[in-house]
């Protein structure tokens, strides 16, 4: 197919793809535009003037919710989940390179972690904590609940990475006299670093946006998605859109920085090759 000229099918499929992208981004851009609604504007088009009123509102208004606090908590939790996800997935990925007893069970447990409905995880951890006499807290119970969602992604990605990783690189390093640690730190790690950054991105964004698993596990202090969900039922002004725009722009920045990092790392790896 590659050598042929662009056919009618190509243009048909390209049109379909364009519609799909419009479907993905169209509604999101509506929110983006409406967050600049004038002070008298409502939740729908048309724009009643253009202003930063609702963004300012976001900063001052504390009666309905605590955006600053919930953002800080979600950000901190995201970073923590990211760090643990990267380390634990990398270790598990290394373990799965060799046969060991229970490997299959552990693998399917990770898959189960992915398919068990979020609300069931939330309920289970909530009940477990209350029976253990522990207060649910975003840094303990919600942290664990988020890990049950981010770790399977991390483990599956590492599994895929090591599936394609030729052991001959390490054998060569060992033949040249490198210790196990040296061959890991100087040979394996630089090669898989771009994928690890990808795992980190998943860890952070999945936690930062997680809602269902935080429901019964966050405790007294809300995370940002909980705050947002609360707003969908009782806020009827464009301040909701302003918050949506701010968090989305933040997510986009995180993605942009990470993709930039991955590209830079890949390029460096390519140049390192003779």
């Amino acid at each position: 197919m590659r050598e042929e000229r662009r056919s009618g099918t190509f243009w048909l499929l390209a049109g379909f793809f364009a519609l799909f992208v419009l479907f993905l981004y169209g509604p999101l851009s509506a929110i983006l535009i409406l967050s600049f609604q004038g002070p008298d504007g409502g939740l729908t088009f048309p724009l009643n003037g253009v202003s930063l009123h609702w963004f300012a509102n976001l900063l001052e208004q504390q009666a309905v919710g605590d955006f600053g606090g919930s953002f800080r908590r979600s950000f901190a939790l995201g970073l923590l989940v990211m760090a643990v996800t990267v380390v634990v997935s990398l270790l598990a990925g290394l373990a799965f390179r060799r046969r060991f007893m229970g490997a299959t069970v552990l693998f399917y447990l990770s898959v189960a972690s992915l398919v068990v409905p979020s609300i069931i995880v939330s309920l289970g951890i909530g009940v477990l904590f209350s029976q253990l006499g522990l207060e649910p807290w975003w840094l303990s119970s919600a942290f664990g609940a988020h890990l049950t969602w981010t770790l399977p992604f991390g483990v599956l990605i590492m599994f895929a990475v090591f599936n394609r990783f030729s052991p001959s690189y390490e054998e060569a390093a060992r033949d040249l006299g490198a210790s196990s640690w040296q061959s890991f730190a100087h040979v394996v790690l630089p090669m898989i670093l771009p994928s690890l950054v990808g795992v980190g991105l998943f860890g952070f964004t999945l936690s930062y946006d997680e809602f269902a698993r935080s429901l019964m596990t966050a405790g007294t202090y809300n995370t940002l998605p909980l705050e947002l969900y609360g707003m969908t039922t009782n806020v009827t002004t464009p301040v909701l859109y302003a918050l949506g725009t701010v968090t989305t722009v933040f997510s986009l920045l995180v993605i942009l920085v990470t993709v930039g990092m991955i590209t830079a790392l890949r390029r460096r790896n390519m140049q390192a090759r003779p």
Partner: protein
Amino acid sequence: MSIAFDQPALSALSKAPSNPLRGRARSLASYLQAAPLALILGFFLLLPLVMIVVVSFWDYDFAQMYPDFVTFNYSETLTSWVTWKTYLNTLKYAALVWILTTTIGFTVAYFLAFHIRTTAMQTVLFLVCTVPFLTSNIIRMISWIPVLGRNGLINSSLIESGLVASPVEWLLYSDFAVVLAMVHLYTLFMVTPIFNTLMRIDRALIEAARDAGASGPQILWNVVLPLAKPGIAIGTIFVVTLVMADFSTVQVMSGGQSASVALMMKNQMSLLQYPAAAANAVVLLLLVLVMVGALLRIVDIRKEL
């Protein structure tokens, strides 16, 4: 689940260690490396699930739960007409969303894998599809409100163009809105695995089929589609489990007019009826696990990664 890896697949299993002592040290290393994952999943997944099964047999009143062994949490939910209707409704969503995401997902993945010529362009277009997935689901959901609402974009353009006299009511707060939002949220889970399997199809097979006289549709139906089955199966696992677990999309997009099993659970939880919610959780979990188990017979996930 990531950007397509382009190196050929190689078996990860290293050769059996020759020195038995070194072999033991290595297997110890494996256990140490696997331990954090096992501990976290053990404490935050297995133990809570055990807890749910236990609690589902407990008694409760308006304030707290009492350790006991009663089965009325199950009999109450399973003999209720509302429960069955809710399950049917959830399965209806799952079926509709599955059909739509599979069709859209396969078409998009097919276009990316077979019609985009350079790897760089493929990566860029794939990223364009991935980015929304990494932003908040709740934001993506509510972003439909200014589009579909009574005074939303679609209704106002329909009225302006004179096609309808009054706003179309079923666009928002309806089953239509629920399914639309779910397709919007979950299609990527179908695109990614199908794209990965399509990328691995040996292009020589397609040329061979063409040389043997197959037409375009024949190649698609008899060569590409059978080879894409594992990807479709993995995507199905994601989409079906996500829809079966969904309560927020159903709540927001139906405006409280429709129910799903998870939403029913959530309502019981907010009324502190944890044992009743736990019984529902066990039933839902069994249903989901049976569905996933059936799909895992079609596909060996470890071979597809």
